[in-house]
């Protein structure tokens, strides 16, 4: 696959051309922060962003999505979104999260709704230019990424290095005018960015290798920290909402005004919310905040990893750290405290 060098002007032309031919979702300023949104002009693209408010997961697993339509008492018909789109400016840690979601939605029972959107997407990733205030991708090994994107962009100052990783990416790059093959100097600059990011995306430093976390949690189930920290938890689910690897959902029916037809939708749900495990008869299996608080951290660093070959399902984006009002969600703080109390055994 080719590795090209594009001047910033050349890149802007490429983005403008892309907007002409496809639905481009790009990172843009939102007040003083940033978010993914439909891109209307190349000028609005901000690849120098630190972190987006929401991860890009909503483009694969929307906050609400129609799974099927139905006739009351009659047949059900699957519904799919059929539009292709380009996701432009995905940071490495978010690419890792998408890779994990891809695996989870394909394994055991293949989720056609998620995969349909996923297969319609072109992902143009970009290396981090400016670390966000709570990022800890370095600690999680997600500061750089080697797969999961169609094109990876790296800002090397006056230009971008663009590497195609798939046929889709290769075809897109082939259409870029003024692109030259990346020379040794450009590649060296890219290596320097990677080397820098591998160390510097670490506002919270995990005191152990991330791969050790499942073993750490094996010993931590009855630790007082769950009760202690969750005392101030609002059960608001903000940590779930902003997490790029949270994918729990609820399913609900919506009947149309004719009372004869309707749709079945799935909507984001969160394991921190009260009622998440409640069954008929009002029995709730995780009715304590501490149980729900612990569940999230176990899911990230023990339960989900067991399903995806040991990868830790926290990618270090730091969004939960920023979103948590009582400031208890920081996974690094929790894991470090456990290490401090129990040592690395």
């Amino acid at each position, binding site marked *: 696959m080719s590795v090209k060098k594009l001047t910033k002007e050349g890149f802007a032309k490429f983005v403008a051309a892309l907007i002409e031919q496809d639905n481009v979702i790009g990172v843009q300023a939102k007040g003083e922060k940033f978010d993914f949104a439909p891109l209307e002009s190349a000028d609005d693209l901000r690849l120098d962003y630190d972190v987006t408010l929401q991860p890009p997961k909503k483009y694969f697993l929307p906050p609400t999505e129609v*799974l*099927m339509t*139905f*006739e*009351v*008492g*009659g*047949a*059900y018909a*699957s519904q*799919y979104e*059929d539009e292709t789109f380009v996701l432009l400016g995905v940071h490495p840690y978010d690419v890792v999260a998408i890779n994990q979601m891809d695996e*989870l*939605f394909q394994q*055991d*029972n*293949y*989720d*056609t*709704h998620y*995969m*349909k959107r996923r*297969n*319609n997407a072109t992902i143009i990733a970009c290396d981090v230019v400016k670390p966000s205030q709570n990022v800890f991708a370095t600690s999680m090994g997600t500061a750089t990424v080697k797969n999961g994107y169609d094109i990876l962009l790296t800002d090397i100052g006056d230009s971008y290095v663009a590497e195609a990783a798939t046929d889709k990416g290769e075809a897109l790059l082939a259409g870029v005018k003024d692109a030259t093959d990346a020379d040794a100097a450009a590649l060296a600059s890219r290596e320097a960015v990677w080397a820098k990011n591998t160390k510097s995306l670490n506002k919270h430093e995990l005191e152990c290798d991330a791969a050790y976390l499942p073993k750490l949690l094996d010993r931590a*189930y009855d630790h007082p920290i769950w009760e202690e920290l969750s005392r101030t938890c609002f059960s608001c689910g903000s940590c779930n909402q902003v997490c790029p690897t949270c*994918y*729990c*959902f*609820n*399913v*609900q*029916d919506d*009947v149309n005004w004719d*009372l004869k037809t*309707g749709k*079945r939708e*799935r909507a984001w*749900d969160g*394991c921190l919310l009260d009622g*998440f*495990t*409640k*069954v*008929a*008869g009002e*029995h709730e*299996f*995780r009715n304590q905040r501490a*149980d729900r608080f612990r*569940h999230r951290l*176990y*899911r990230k660093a*023990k*339960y989900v990893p*067991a399903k995806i070959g040991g990868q830790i399902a926290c990618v270090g984006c730091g969004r939960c750290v920023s979103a948590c009002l009582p400031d208890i969600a920081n996974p690094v703080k929790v894991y470090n405290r456990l290490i401090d109390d129990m040592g690395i055994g």
Partner: protein
Amino acid sequence: MCQCCSEKKDIYLPELATVVKADAMNVTERYLQLAMDDGQFDYTPGQFVEVSLAGIGEAPITITSSPTQKDGFELVIRKIGNVTNAVHNLQTGDKIGIRGPLGDGQYPVEEAKGKNLVFICGGLGLVPQRSFINYVLDNRDDYGEVAILQGTRCFDQRLFIDEVAAWEKRDDVQMLETLDEGGPNWKGNVGVVTKLIPMVKTDLKSAVVLVCGPPIMYKFVLMALEEFDVPHESIYLNLERKMKCGVGKCGHCQINDVYCCMDGPVFRYSDLATMPEAI
């Protein structure tokens, strides 16, 4: 649609079934016999289906019939939530959506062969257990002694009264029944289901013990079984959770690292040792 998705089945899409027979069992429980419109439906005792009513939603319900019975399959549904309330309005000939059968954690149909079986049921717990009970009775020679313990809250909530009476008459089944609250109509045992355990004639220590009931019941039954030194490997528990999607995605039924809908709903007790949330 892309090729890879169009070739795969939509795991959330219900298929239509027709209500062959509908009957009120008591004030809160409704019996349904269903037949899939496309005919085929193979299941194992312990498996469940997602019952779907368009416009209302889905609810996970364990199949109560035995696969040895050839006419469709049966469900017994308590009126307790949105979907189950609406189920009580269904009449013969009505359509209902079904996904399943689901659940890889089933009753140990093969493993229990040649062994003595003790079924401990609390209230509605008889409903899932009945699938395996009838399977065993239809393959009677494959299994050893059978004891069925049923605890029900009150006289009016007793289920499958004729069937239970028939089991009671059989000399190859020890049927024990108790009511939490006795009454003028009841001449049998009074008290919770654990009271029946010492009356079991079968050697509990060497038996396969199958337990199903409300969440609160398990702790007490397990404590009672502990007194008889029943090995944890031979106890099976049918767990209830919010199995919303039924296919291991939505996260609601997760018990520690396990999805109840995928690895359950029937679990071997010894496998629950690493799942503190289970009981």
